[in-house]
């Protein structure tokens, strides 16, 4: 029998904002875009009282809670906080499975002699997160993932709920079937039509009937309903590609602006490649056109190019992606642009190349990248960035102004 914990930050983005800005404390805070297209990324508990939920359109959130303070959100800051929090998680067990920036499974099996009983260990984990980041985390402890996740949700805000192996069935039985992963509105309606409302009723349903209702997935759902969830905590999944993308607030057709964004994405991708010690040979450009196909559907264009040498250099990635943009011959505005690098290989253990195009120059750039990475690690991300045409123009202008004053 395993001991798993599901740790989930309470209203993570909103809590970070409230922590950093005292004026926001005690007020309904919504993190997310204000624009017509914006969605709620996170809502503080004060805002949730009005029915504001994450993933809800901002327009609707504003209607529900006119007093809410909208904050644009700073993903970089959240990622930094997330890194600190996961470091704390890893003090308790190396088996930490990251589900998102603010949510993780921890496998605490066999840690009792070191950390004490799981409820005490989880309480200590919550105290340490609170003390070091000022943020609240809720946790559920159970023998299987599904139950741990439901328990952490039930423990919110700022609580712990432990479900012992013997209590699993009693805990699950009264809950609505929709709490099981994979049972969405359609399956729920189908089950309800047959009088199956709770997880307990689903657990007791016979196989033939389930197969009829939900197909082979029905049997799996019933197993989950009985608290049988064989999924293990997977500490790390090796990524097959590294990508960055963004949706514009307004549709963009200016190639210079697109190229600027591509450059920024390439920088971010390259930095992550270098951080993880990998390089990639295939560069992909992803474009979502502004022309609408139907509700929420837009034509997606992806273009890829495979290069002779694997790279982790932003300039190389950006130039490949810009070339793809030119070749794509875009004549309609774009609402989303993304850059990804795949066909990864380890940067160490590298086969050296005989003719590496300007191998001297490449070596120099790679050393430069390393230094820039070190500076950014020490002084914070984006302390040092590669100059773009616009930033050079701006710098030249300000230099002129200064000289004029002298």
């Amino acid at each position, binding site marked *: 029998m395993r001991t798993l914990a599901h740790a989930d930050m309470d209203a993570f983005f909103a809590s970070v904002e409230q922590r950093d800005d005292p004026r926001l404390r005690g007020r309904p805070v919504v993190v997310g875009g204000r624009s017509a297209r914006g969605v709620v990324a996170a809502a503080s508990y004060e805002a949730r009282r009005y029915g504001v939920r994450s993933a809800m359109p901002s327009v609707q959130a504003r209607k529900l809670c006119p007093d809410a303070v909208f904050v644009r959100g700073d993903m970089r800051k959240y990622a930094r906080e997330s890194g600190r929090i996961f470091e704390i998680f890893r003090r308790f067990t190396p088996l930490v499975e990251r589900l998102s920036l603010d949510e993780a499974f921890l496998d605490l099996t066999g840690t009792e002699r070191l950390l004490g009983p799981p409820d005490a260990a989880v309480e200590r984990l919550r105290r340490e997160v609170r003390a070091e980041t000022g943020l609240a985390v809720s946790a559920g402890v159970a023998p299987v993932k599904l139950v741990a996740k439901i328990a952490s949700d039930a423990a919110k805000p700022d609580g712990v709920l432990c479900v012992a192996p013997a209590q699993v069935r009693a805990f699950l039985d009264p809950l609505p079937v929709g709490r099981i992963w994979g049972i969405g509105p359609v399956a729920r309606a189908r089950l309800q039509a047959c009088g199956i409302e709770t997880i307990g009723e689903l657990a007791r349903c016979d196989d033939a009937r389930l197969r009829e209702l939900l197909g082979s997935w029905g049997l799996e759902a019933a197993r989950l309903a009985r608290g049988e969830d064989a999924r293990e905590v997977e500490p790390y999944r090796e990524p097959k590609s590294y990508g960055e993308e963004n949706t514009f607030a307004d549709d963009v057709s200016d190639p210079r602006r697109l190229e600027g964004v591509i450059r920024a994405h390439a920088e971010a991708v390259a930095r992550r490649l270098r951080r993880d010690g990998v390089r990639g040979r295939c560069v992909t450009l992803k474009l979502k056109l502004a022309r609408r196909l139907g509700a929420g559907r837009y034509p997606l264009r992806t273009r890829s190019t*495979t*290069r*002779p040498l694997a790279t982790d250099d932003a300039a190389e990635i950006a130039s490949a992606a810009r070339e793809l943009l030119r070749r794509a011959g875009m004549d309609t505005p774009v609402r989303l642009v993304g850059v990804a690098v795949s066909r990864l*290989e*380890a940067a*160490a*253990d*590298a*086969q*050296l*190349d*005989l*003719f590496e195009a300007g191998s001297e120059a490449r070596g120099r750039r790679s050393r430069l990248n390393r230094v820039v990475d070190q500076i950014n690690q020490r002084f914070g991300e984006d302390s040092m960035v590669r100059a773009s045409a616009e930033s050079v123009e701006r710098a030249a202008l300000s230099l002129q102004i200064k000289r004029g004053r002298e």
Partner: protein
Amino acid sequence: MKLSIGRDVLLRGLGRIQAIVERRGTLPILANVKMDASDGKVVLSATDLEVGITATHEAEVETPGAVTLGAKKLFEIVRELDGSEVALHIDDAARVSVQSGAAHFSLLSISPQEYPSLPGDAGVGFVGLESALLAEMIDRTLYATSTDETRYNLNGVFMQAEADQRVCFVATDGHRLAKVSKSLPEPVEFLEGGIIVPRKGVAEIRKLCDEHDGPLEIGLGDGFLLLRSPGLLLSSRLVDGEFPNYRQIMPDDHSIRLVVPREHLTHAVRRIALVAPERSRGFRFVLADGQLEIQASNPDLGEARETLSVDYSGERFETGFNARYALDLLGAMSAKEVVVELKTELAPAQFRPADDPDEVAIIMPMRM
């Protein structure tokens, strides 16, 4: 068209073109062989537009004419025929009858008018070359060509004339390079600028070398390399690209020089590489007093090492290579001993047969 041809003659003619015809091509006719019959002979042609071949075979021709048939299927059929002669004639516009012994086939054909015309040898100057020499030069280099389409200029063998009536063949995939240079009985002027012959063309030339003992002729047509022997003309389109300046990366000096028994080194690398990581196939090449140690380690498997005694007395020297590259180059050589020349850990390593100064192979190390 109506003719009769020896079954074995036809089978050999069809066998030769199997690797040339296009299999999954966009143009269906390129999967066909074209047969042109005129007094006393039939000419078989096949091409994928990159490599083309025309070969003349003796036949009893009753009525001249031309036809194209699926090359693979016709080959399979002729292989299974047990008569000594095969009779072919056009039934109607779209069908050809093939008859041998008591077996009879009626096959669909495509009009020969649609068949592309192949480069000819009219007006081309040819130079004679022993087929054994040509075969050897190909064997020493072809393995090192690149299959990476993003490096299309490396997808073939570079052939260039050198001083003193010599011709060199060079192939590289960017990680390793092989070069061989041989003296020819007459100068090959058309190779002065150098040409890149694609892998497939070189492989077909190599096959013809086995078929023909004695001299072959090579010449340069408009964008094609031509190979000629009596009754046969092979053409290979050239790679339209620039071969990298390989001379620039050829090591001109070394700090370490070893002489190693080739077979011994080959077996050691093959054995030790069994535990090398699947993806990189990297092994360590470590020199210490009087010995060369081949090492490999794999986090999922374990480690392996083997020592060879060598004449070395310098400081400990350690570098790494891809086992596939090392085995390829050792396998392409035939000398009993190889000379290994090294400069620094990350500099190109040079291997050459101890008995042949005209041949060299270079591999770039791995950073391990």
